[in-house]
């Protein structure tokens, strides 16, 4: 876990994202977020919370929105920066991987060419780029990498494709990897392997990771810090152990209580977010009321 460093690698302040056009609604409001060098931060939220919108807004991937506020990466301001600057940052400074590896890969190009592409763009020679691509595939556990690099994406399983996409994301030596639900489409054992790889590479390369997900389970063992988003705002942000063991916001408590657990009594009813928010609205009880703590525990879906 990285301690207190003076200057974060990524410093987001008061980020607002609005859909372009007359009366385009604002979908992300006043988001502050820091990622330190080598730190792993999880941005967690349900669908529609704005977590992916934030991820894409960092390097202005979505032309359909307007971004306001400040995004500083490695001391350079990205909001309002010319497209040329952003293009340099994408791939080199900040790399992204997404849920569906097949959508990120070109089915009729050889794996090696796709993994090497970020290097070729930056003027690395063909042979050197191919050599480094194969090296990265090997590093990410693609068996017989030199041979398999010559094949095509359709010849790879889902887990292998995600390794290929990760190799392409890491080959240029980025400082920050933004991973948007990279394991959601994968089976649980493959998911575990891909997440292990993310952690391993992050540790070995000093790579910072911003991990976007709806799945609290995978965050626990992966992140140093967790930020929880709801309705376009960050409602809670803290060290992973604190957020899981003593969540401050009722929504976070609701989310944690709603996850079916492999290690808890199955007879215990799942809490729902609504339960926790009811408690939040009603607590603390105004002076003069005498609602017992037991009532509240019950409303809270049997937490504690």
């Amino acid at each position, binding site marked *: 876990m990285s301690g207190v460093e003076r200057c974060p690698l990524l410093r987001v302040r008061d980020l607002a994202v609005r859909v372009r056009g007359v009366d385009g609604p604002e979908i992300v409001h006043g988001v502050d977020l820091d990622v330190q060098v080598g730190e792993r931060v999880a941005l967690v939220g*349900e*669908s529609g919370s704005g977590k992916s919108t934030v991820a894409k807004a960092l390097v202005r991937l979505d032309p359909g929105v307007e971004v306001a506020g400040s995004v500083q990466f490695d001391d350079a301001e990205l909001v309002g920066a010319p497209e040329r600057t952003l293009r340099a940052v994408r791939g080199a400074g900040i790399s992204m991987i997404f849920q569906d590896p097949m959508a990120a890969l070109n089915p009729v190009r050889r794996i090696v060419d796709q993994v090497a592409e970020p290097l070729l763009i930056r003027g690395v020679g063909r042979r050197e780029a191919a050599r480094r691509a194969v090296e990265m595939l*090997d590093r990410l*556990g*693609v*068996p017989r990498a030199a041979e398999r690099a010559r094949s095509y994406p359709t010849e790879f*399983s*889902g*887990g*292998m494709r995600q*390794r290929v996409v990760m190799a392409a994301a890491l080959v240029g030596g980025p400082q920050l990897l933004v991973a948007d639900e990279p394991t959601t489409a994968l*089976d*649980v*054992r*493959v*998911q*575990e*392997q891909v*997440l*292990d*790889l993310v*952690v*391993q590479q992050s540790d070995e390369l000093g790579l910072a990771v911003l991990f976007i997900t*709806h*799945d*609290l*389970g*995978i965050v*626990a*063992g*992966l992140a140093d810090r967790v930020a929880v988003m709801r309705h376009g705002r960050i409602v809670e942000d803290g060290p*992973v*152990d604190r957020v*899981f*063991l003593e969540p401050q916001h009722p929504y976070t408590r*609701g*989310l*944690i*209580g*709603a*996850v*079916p*657990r*492999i*290690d808890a009594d*199955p007879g215990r*009813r*799942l*809490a*729902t*977010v*609504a339960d926790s928010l009811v408690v939040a609205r009603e607590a603390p009880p105004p002076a003069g009321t005498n609602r017992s703590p037991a009532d509240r525990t019950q409303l809270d879906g049997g937490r504690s």
Partner: protein
Amino acid sequence: MTQMPAHPLLYVQDLVKTFGSGSRAHTAVDRVSFALAEGEVLGLVGESGSGKSTTLRCLMGLETPDAGDLDYDRIDLRKPSRTQRRRFRREVQLVFQDPYSSLDPRMTVGQILAEPLVVSGACPARERRDRVVETLELVDLGAEHLGRHPRDFSGGQRQRIAIARALVVRPRVLVCDEPVSALDVSVQAQVLNLLKDMQSRLGLSVLFVAHDLAVVRYLCDRVVVLRDGRVVETGTREEIYTRPREEYTRTLLEAVPRLDPAGERARRAVRLARAASQGAAQPVA
């Protein structure tokens, strides 16, 4: 396999289904057997390609199996009579994964819930509205929603409507195909709680197909673990989750992330150390 219930309601024996032929043949289901007892919740769990969906499709008559027996309450599902087929279709109801594509967008909630009653003749015409409202209330939606369309509802509400549609004919068996895997966790919790309530209140038998082992553990009394079209093991919830007999079941359970940061970090450190000592991680799949 062990532990066949004494009087199964639904009974699958040595089911085989192969797709393609010659060198391209792929046996999706390979001698799968299990039984669902009255009032029981049975989980069919497996990764993609395990054969769980094909098994379900054979059971519901959407695929023709190559071999094996399928029985429901003394009906041979491989050659049922017309009346037997009608009874099966009324008493065994399906809930699908995706509540967005399983509800007709042009129909109102009232029409969606009345349709199974009309088709099955389960309820006289003048009692239909009452039955529909009663069922809607069962899933915590009220009569005020009768005239609305699926688009007016959230994902969780749609899945409740889909469950109500399955329950409206008063089935004995509910077959659920990944009913919560497309839902957000807070909505998933509501739907799982609802399914659990309905099961115990109505004494339903449930066949629950899912890939999520924690979800299956929350809901199911007994579990069948599938892999590559075969049954790996069958057992009670207690047996499967606390003392699995098969290595495969253990690795599946091991891979489920826990909500315990310190524990998860420790588990990962062990895995990475093990992988480092064995050379590169051996990819599964």
